[in-house]
């Protein structure tokens, strides 16, 4: 990972090459009322395959947040209390995705550049999300080596069995994540009868001081795997991760369509030798124990094309409300307000992830193209912390006014009293507009 606006600008320079180096396609304009002319020869020409591809998107995302100056996370983020009222941010991003295929081998790369402007000034980031070599030995066997995203689990907002993924943001769960350097394979076999597919996907993930060091303890080689099946029209997976960078863990997940418009899914994870800690970073219990995390969810589609996703998540490694009470009290001590204070960095590190408590409910409802307006999707999402009753409510609207252009406007209300998860976040409200142009 690098942090340089210069790298972002280099990535930006590649954008016009990619955008104009290939046929834009996808959109044209004709006179209303005239017959659409179909050029079959032109369409046949478009089906010709090139060995390489280059694409991605350019993004601009202005956002403003209404700060809660009394909240615990405001105190951590702004120890000098130097930001008041409304915080403005302007993010520009560039995603670059490329591939080259020759025969059974292919190389795939995904890069992400981000340029931020906020109260701290300009800051640039260029990250390699993926960069791996793939070899399709046969339809039954594929080998991959390099930096790759491995996605496990059936849940929409959370995945307790995602043992080799980075945690996703439940408020934006469909966004791409950065991968890890791995050696992985997929062995697949199809059958007739109730067991239609059986697949085994092993993963080897080394951790050293310079490779995958964010994953866990370094100087270890970790081995994981997923045995997946389609059995009696049910997706059923068994998963494990062993190695010394993280404690050994096992998981199971499943997904099934109960009816043609109703899907159910679930995950269960057993995490062995889990050392419970307090939010301030110190050990909360003397010994290690086994933690269980689970998720149960459903997706329902109504006749009017309203999709509802509901999930319950129990985070067995999360904090208890009593732990957090102590934490919130500690944040308000004078020592915690000192930027040089050792406690401060400890707090931020421990709670850098989202949803660090134990029980959550997630509900998302999205309506496809209401009132016959094509390419428009209004939606509302809510995440409720069951332990303290605080919640966030995120209404939003996505619209594609033309091919390859996507606009998303959404707000987030964070509601809860003092001493609750969402009540102690740095914002009371956040509004953002995201404009993406795909090329």
């Amino acid at each position: 990972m690098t942090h340089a606006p210069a790298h972002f600008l280099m990535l930006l320079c590649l954008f016009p090459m990619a955008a104009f180096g290939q046929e834009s396609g996808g959109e044209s304009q004709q006179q209303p009322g005239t017959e659409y002319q179909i050029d079959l020869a032109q369409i046949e020409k478009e089906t010709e395959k090139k060995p390489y591809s280059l694409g991605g998107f350019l993004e601009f995302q202005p956002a403003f947040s209404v700060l809660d100056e009394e909240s615990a996370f405001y105190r951590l983020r702004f120890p000098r209390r130097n930001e008041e009222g409304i915080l403005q941010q302007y993010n520009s991003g560039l995603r670059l995705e490329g591939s080259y295929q020759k025969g059974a081998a292919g190389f795939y790369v995904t890069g992400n550049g981000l340029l931020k402007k906020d109260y701290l000034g300009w800051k640039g980031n260029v990250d390699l999300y993926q960069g791996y070599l793939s070899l399709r030995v046969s339809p039954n066997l594929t080998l991959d080596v390099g930096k790759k995203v491995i996605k496990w689990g059936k849940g929409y907002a959370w995945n307790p069995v995602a043992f080799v993924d980075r945690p996703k943001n439940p408020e934006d769960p469909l966004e791409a994540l950065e991968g890890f350097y791995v050696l992985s394979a997929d062995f697949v076999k199809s059958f007739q009868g109730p067991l239609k597919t059986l697949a085994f996907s092993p993963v080897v993930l080394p951790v050293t001081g310079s490779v995958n060091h964010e994953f866990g303890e370094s100087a270890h080689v970790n081995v994981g795997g997923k045995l997946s099946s389609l059995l009696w029209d049910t997706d059923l997976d068994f998963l494990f991760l062993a190695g010394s960078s993280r404690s050994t863990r096992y998981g199971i997940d499943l997904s099934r369509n109960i009816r043609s418009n109703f899907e159910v899914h679930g995950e269960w994870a057993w995490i062995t030798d889990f050392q419970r800690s307090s939010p301030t970073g110190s050990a909360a219990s003397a010994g290690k124990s086994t933690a269980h995390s689970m998720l149960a969810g459903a997706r329902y589609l109504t006749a009017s094309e309203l999709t509802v996703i509901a999930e319950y998540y129990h985070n067995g490694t999360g904090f208890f409300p009593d732990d957090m009470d102590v934490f919130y009290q500690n944040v308000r001590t004078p020592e915690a307000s000192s930027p040089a204070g050792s406690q401060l960095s400890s707090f931020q590190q421990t709670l850098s992830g989202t949803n660090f408590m134990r029980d959550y409910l997630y509900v998302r409802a999205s309506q496809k193209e209401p009132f016959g307006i094509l390419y428009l999707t209004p939606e509302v999402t809510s995440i409720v912390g069951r332990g303290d009753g605080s919640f966030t409510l995120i209404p939003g609207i996505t619209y594609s006014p033309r091919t390859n252009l996507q606009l998303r406007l959404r707000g987030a209300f964070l509601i809860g009293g003092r001493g609750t998860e969402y009540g102690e976040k740095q914002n009371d409200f956040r509004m953002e507009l995201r404009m993406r142009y795909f090329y």
Partner: protein
Amino acid sequence: MFRRTIAIFAFVALLVAPAFAADVDGEEILKKLDRNLAPASFESYRKLINIEPDGSTREYLLYTVKKGNDKIAALFLSPPSEKGRATLRLGDNMWLYIPDVGKPIRITSLQSVIGGVFNNADIMSLDYHVEYSVSQIEDRGSEYLLDLKAKTGAVAYDRLKMTVDKKLLVPLEIQCIAASGMLIKTLHFKEMKKFEDGITRPAVIETDSPLYRGYKSIMVYAVIKSRTFADEVFTLPFLPRLETLR
């Protein structure tokens, strides 16, 4: 008494015979029509075009592979906003793969893969004789009118009224009707074209819908080619790798 019984049997036989004959003929016609539209296992390239009331269009290029009666997978090749998005259908099971999400998600078979007039039923349909049975057939001189009923509730359109060219045994028009009896859309088959493997069929399917007044959608078949695939091509681990088949 005996004569009376014989007469009743004869009367009942007369009543049901046409229905049986129609049923058998109808199923046979439907199977032949399916083979005239595409081989049992094939790969194809299609362009989906949405034409909006102001004349602007949106175009999607789709690569599709199919095997037998219950396996089909499709990959969007363009536009860039949809590129890499893939769907897999195994019988009534359906999954969607979005490159950013990085894993296949099980979806309900009635869900739309992209916005606009097209839905999964248009993009991921199996052979007509697999999803529908013929409930009625009417001989209209140079055409047949088939009344088709969905075999399961997992199919988007409960009934189809299909007008078939009697000589060529290809559809000319299909009315798609919901279980409520409401007309959802009408498909018009046009422009006969010779494809490989002796397939001659309409290359263009125009769609209009009373639900989207002023909008029109067109599906254009550019390539249909007989090809056999390993069963493992139609599995979740292979879904992100569909592009490697091209």
